């Protein structure tokens, strides 16, 4: 394990719940992870597994009501964000920790110029003149490889394409050189050809600026290309954590294995296409009424009595490869 001072983000036992009419909803349950300087950590899982709520919890932007962070700590560069008051937190947001959202089409303010939106992000945290900030804004747009940045800075979001808007979002998020960048499905809403460009851009800038990156995605292909470490989430909990190599080589959790099996294989030329795509049967259980034992047990081929009775602890399977499964040893053999 790396030296503690190298940690940009250290999340311990994070718990975020939602109070709804149908009951208490544990969106993030006892989640711990850390990110080192310049490292990319991917959080993977199906829709509704709590990955976006995790991101919002780190930013302390969980809509309250109905949501609330009820436990744990989020240490950013050694400061526990959950202990800050709202004004102190505002000074951190967009400055030391920032976020890129899934929907570039709607994430920029339609009535403000692109440049002004970046200028605002800069001037909220740096005491500099509007003119200097404008210079930084154009520089950031150049950095995210937007052609003619000075002209684009004067344009409004509707005059830019989706890919361009996501670049502008990245420019805005990185304008204050944050220690940690959270990217919540940054390429999901984009065309496939643009996706690769945007990912490459995020990684390049991350390397250049030494930013820690939390990449939230449901796309294991993206994970393999970008991340050093991966967390797999299921029903609000971390079910597996490993280095990318270890995870793809030998997943320890049946859910992870199911995710990997669901990636459609491209048939070799000449071969007939696969008859049916692989899937994980069933759906994610309601977070209001989680089973007592392992939340994945009802969908798991390997489930035994014990799985339904007791929640499996996260066990270390060597080299920091953690998995929460009673039958982790059998997973590899079955496949």
């Amino acid at each position, binding site marked *: 394990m790396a030296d503690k001072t190298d940690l940009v983000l250290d999340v311990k036992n994070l718990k975020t719940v939602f109070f709804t009419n149908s009951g208490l909803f544990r969106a993030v349950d006892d989640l711990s992870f850390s990110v080192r300087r310049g490292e990319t950590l991917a959080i993977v899982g199906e829709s509704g597994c709590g990955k976006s709520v995790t991101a919002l919890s780190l*930013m302390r*932007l969980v809509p309250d009501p109905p949501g609330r962070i009820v436990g744990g700590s989020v240490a950013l560069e050694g400061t526990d964000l959950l202990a800050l008051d709202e004004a102190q937190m*505002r*000074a*951190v*947001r*967009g*400055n030391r920790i*920032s*976020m890129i*959202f899934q*929907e570039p089409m*709607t*994430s*920029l*303010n*339609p*009535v*403000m110029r692109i440049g002004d939106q970046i200028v*605002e*992000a800069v001037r*909220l*945290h740096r005491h500099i003149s509007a003119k200097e900030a404008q210079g930084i804004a154009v520089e950031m747009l150049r950095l995210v490889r937007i052609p003619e940045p000075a002209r684009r800075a004067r344009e*409004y979001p*509707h005059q830019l394409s989706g890919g361009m808007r996501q670049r502008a*979002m990245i420019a*805005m*998020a990185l304008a204050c050189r944050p220690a940690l960048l959270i990217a919540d499905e940054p390429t999901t809403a984009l065309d496939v050809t643009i996706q690769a460009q945007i990912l490459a851009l995020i990684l390049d800038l991350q390397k250049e600026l030494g930013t820690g990156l939390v990449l939230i995605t449901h796309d294991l292909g993206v994970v393999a290309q970008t991340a050093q470490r991966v967390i797999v989430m299921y029903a609000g909990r971390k079910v597996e954590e490993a280095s990318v190599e270890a995870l793809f080589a030998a997943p320890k959790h049946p859910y992870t294995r199911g995710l990997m099996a669901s990636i459609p294989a491209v048939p070799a030329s000449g071969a007939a296409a696969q008859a049916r795509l692989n899937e994980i049967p069933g759906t994610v259980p309601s977070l209001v009424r989680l089973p007592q034992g392992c939340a994945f047990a009802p969908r798991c081929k390997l489930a035994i009595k014990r799985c339904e009775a007791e929640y499996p602890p996260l066990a270390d399977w060597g080299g920091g490869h953690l998995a929460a499964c009673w039958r982790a040893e059998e997973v590899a053999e079955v496949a």
Partner: protein
Amino acid sequence: MFAYLVRRLFLMFVTLFGISIVIFFLLRIVPGNIVDILFAAAGYVDPADKANLEKELGIDRPLIVQYWHWISGFMRGDFGFSYVSEKPALQEILPRIPITAKLAGLALLFSASIGIPLGVISAVKQGTKLDYALRVVSLSGLSLPSFWLGLLILTASVAMFGQMPIFNPNPKTWLEAFATYAVPAAAVGFRSAALTMRITRSSMLEVLRQDYIRTARAKGASEAAVNYHHALKNAILPVITVIGIEAAFLIGGLIVTETVFNIPGVARFLVEAIRWRDYPIVQNLVMFIAVVVVFANFTVDMLYAVFDPRIRYTD
């Protein structure tokens, strides 16, 4: 843009032309004319005298000739003479315009400066006691007719202070002028303020759910900056529309308010002129009002483009 403006001005002209026809013929449909009324009041009818007077006023001629006489005069800036006072119509109308304009302007100012901030607060504090209180007040604003509210204010001031505000035609200080207009403007503006508040609230609630509001928070913007800078700018368009429509509606509210508060403005003057079938006054005054309303609509449309860069008027 230029072609748009030309087309727009042409349409405004057509609209005003239509209004002139409607008001002219509506007035002629109303039974009786000034001569009937005068002679009925005198209780003496000599058909020859009556015919002479009608001839003198020109109301014996065919309607189409009368219309042409009026509208060609209107275009040339010749507004004719009031039947009642026999003074030039312009001389009767002009001095009353600033009074009504001040009243209407102040009412709109109240409506925007009270309605918009309260609407924002109500939206931001959605579901709280404050929100409910503001919504009840605004609902009462929509339900109270302005003349009744005006009467209530007058009655209350008599009951509490033993006197009531009287219109002061020559206020000496700025403050006196404000006091003269503020009470009637508030009575007539309450409704607009309530409507503005409700529209602002619902428009804000819509905008506050948008992704870019979350982006603004993620930048570290304060709640005030998020609400007023990011959200209100996006929520303002429907509010402008409503204020524009209210500006036109205000004339109707002012007629009764000017009567209740005994203010010598154009709105009350219009009603009196209608009672006397004082055609030159009514026709020209309605045309003035129509011009104001048409230009108010035009201004609102132009303001759209100012507030929303996605709206551009092209050919």
